[in-house]
């Protein structure tokens, strides 16, 4: 009888452990689904987001803007910059590489903004001027 009780206890413990682990695992899974990972370079054309590229992946992409404008966005070693642009002032091309949350590169003639965004964090800057 004592033996039976013990067995039952062990069985119940196992069931409890499985339930606890299952709940915890579901929680973790849900958290991960709703979480955005790392930082991105967001491309905005005339204020509207068109693309976002993770800073963790090296990329080179040509952004086509209004009036047949082109800005070549490069992501390299976690930093984003404009390698080449057909705009007249080339201010975006001259801008240093950005990687801080809140930093932007603006091409006024082409109405392009590259902005660094990331998952919510206390360290985020609201604006860099």
């Amino acid at each position: 009888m004592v033996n039976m009780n013990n067995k039952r206890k062990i069985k119940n413990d196992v069931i409890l452990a499985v339930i606890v682990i299952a709940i915890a695992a579901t929680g973790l899974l849900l958290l991960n689904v709703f979480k955005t990972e790392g930082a991105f370079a967001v491309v905005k054309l005339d204020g509207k987001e068109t693309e976002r590229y993770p800073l963790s992946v090296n990329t080179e992409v040509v952004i086509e803007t209004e009036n047949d404008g082109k800005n070549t966005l490069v992501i390299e070693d976690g930093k984003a910059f404009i390698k080449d642009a057909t705009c007249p002032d080339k201010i975006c091309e001259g801008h240093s590489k950005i990687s801080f949350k809140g930093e932007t590169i603006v091409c006024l003639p082409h109405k392009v903004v590259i902005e660094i965004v990331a998952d919510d964090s206390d360290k985020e800057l609201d604006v860099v001027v």
Partner: protein
Amino acid sequence: MLFSYNIPCFLDMKRKSLSILLVIVLLASQLSLLSSCNTVKEKQKFSEYYFDYFDTVTTITGYTETEEEFKSICEEIKAELNEYHKLYNIYLRYDGMNNICVINDVTDGKHNVVKVDKKIIDLLLYSKKMYSLTDGKINVAMGSVLSIWHNYRNRGLSDPANAELPPIDKLEEAKKHTDFSKVEINKENNTVFLSDPEMTLDVGAIAKGYAVERIAEYLINKGITDFLLNVGGNVRTIGMGKDNKPWKVGIENPDTSKQEEIPHIEYLKMSDMSLVTSGCYQRFYEVNGKNYHHIIDPVTLYPGEKYLSVSVLTKDSGLGDALSTSLFLMDVEEGKKIVDSLENVEVMWVMPDGEQIYTDGFKNYTFEYIKEF
């Protein structure tokens, strides 16, 4: 049936209820975690960009409960920006509106007496105040000189190989028509008349900051808070940023050659304050390998070369705009005298070698920023 119900022992009863309690607590905590995004009205951050005003990019950032709320406030801000942009425009005319461009017009060899919106009168009266505060460094009657630079710069940008500097005698000739006392402002009748026919107004050094301050005032009067307006680097914060704490603002390194290692030279925490930076890196063109920027000294008629940038921290964005431009053209000592005559104005001067000089209270707003990820 997960648990056996026929365990008579008291200890087992206790274990059982504890286990059930544990599961309930776990489930409850997860439920609250999941629903927190929906039920608790936490303010969220939104931002929008505009390209149509003051020849620069505008960013509006705000913390609101819903996106609809943010968008509707943005629409109001946009309408205000649009109006100030048109009224203070020196290059374009708009149907049915007497703006600054109309004041600058000449018919039969002279300017006309132009009846204008009170917003223009107020701007010009403020400009007059700034003219005397800055010992003439802010002079909106310098249009004749500034338009020469504007044209040479635009030509230089579209054809860099043939970029040229304006000849000094041409600038000196234009300077003869920059006497601010010839701007006749009649605030009873809301009229403006430029009694020198060769004179034109250029409000570029002041209009943007002044307009931003008026819009901030408009928002505050409507009880709107937790917004940040950034019109081409002219930053005005209203209320608080994330988590109801001050906004965090970085200042770019004006030495573009060193931006790789040091992207920002200072980080500020600010609420209900403005930050305006005048820098040699913002608008310029290149002639024979040298950059010529847009802040023109009314005495030398050439771009000021004393600093890489000057940042002004104060409540009023109009004052910040006028001060950052004028301090850029003065020695530190001379600038400090003006700043000391005012309240709650803090300044950072960045010397050509990168050295940073501050007024006493500037560091009260700075913080250490550690980049993460």
